[in-house]
């Protein structure tokens, strides 16, 4: 069961202020995005802590391929990832993409 923390988008939005740029290649498109790789400690269904590796892209929604969806393969600076979640922010102009 994937559980999306209600505050996750805000947590991630705060995280990505700390990051640098990455070159993204996604479904034939190439664009720059803010990239962050930061761990966080969460509690799982048993109530015990888990160190969760959180990798996030912050990009202009208009830069994304029109077909962008969860599960897509992409690269950031040559490293392969899958898009795990797409979260629109700022009236939809910006999208946070959770990748792993």
């Amino acid at each position: 069961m994937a559980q999306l923390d209600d505050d996750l988008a805000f947590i991630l939005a705060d995280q990505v202020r700390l990051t640098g740029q990455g070159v993204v290649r996604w479904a034939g498109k190439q664009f720059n995005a803010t990239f962050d790789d930061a761990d966080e400690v969460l509690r799982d269904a048993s109530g015990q802590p888990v160190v969760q590796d959180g990798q996030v892209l912050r990009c202009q929604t208009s830069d994304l391929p029109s077909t962008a969806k969860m599960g897509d393969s992409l690269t950031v600076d040559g490293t392969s990832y899958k898009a795990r979640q797409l979260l629109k922010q700022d009236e939809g102009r910006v999208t946070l993409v959770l990748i792993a």
Partner: protein
Amino acid sequence: MILEALRIVKNALSDGTIGVNAQLPGVPRDGTDPQPASVALIAESTSNFSAAIEGLLPDVDAQYPCLMLCPGLTPGDDEPVTKAGPLQDGSVEVLIRYGAKDPDAAAGNRDASYTLRAVRRSLNQLQMAAEATRLLNGIYFMYFEGWTPIPFWQLPSGLTITNALRVRMRMRDTLP
């Protein structure tokens, strides 16, 4: 008593005959579901740092999937004293946490579910095992009082998948 419960379960799960990896091939699987990968690390919180602080940590990445054992969060029941004698029986809760990393979220949940069933089968073997397997430091595991499956869990932001099984064990101190 908690230390002994943790290590008795850990030793059983690690055993080549009754352990979880020995049980995995026999777990019934739906359709073409493949057999999950063998558990690479089984650790408990009185002898392993990661298990002690109860987190699934990046430094065990190379040893996923893993089983991390720690005491459960529910206190044991009060033990009624019905006759004069030593305090020797008690219930201990052990949490058996499964951790894995899988880029395929659904496959990760599937493997977690099958692996936890293998864990339960291994525990059933422990309950029927010879006394020597169930005795440590004079503390004897008598039987399981119950078990609770914990739902598998993951966040969309990462690869980590967890699942757990909580068991309640009846223990006796034979050297009170």
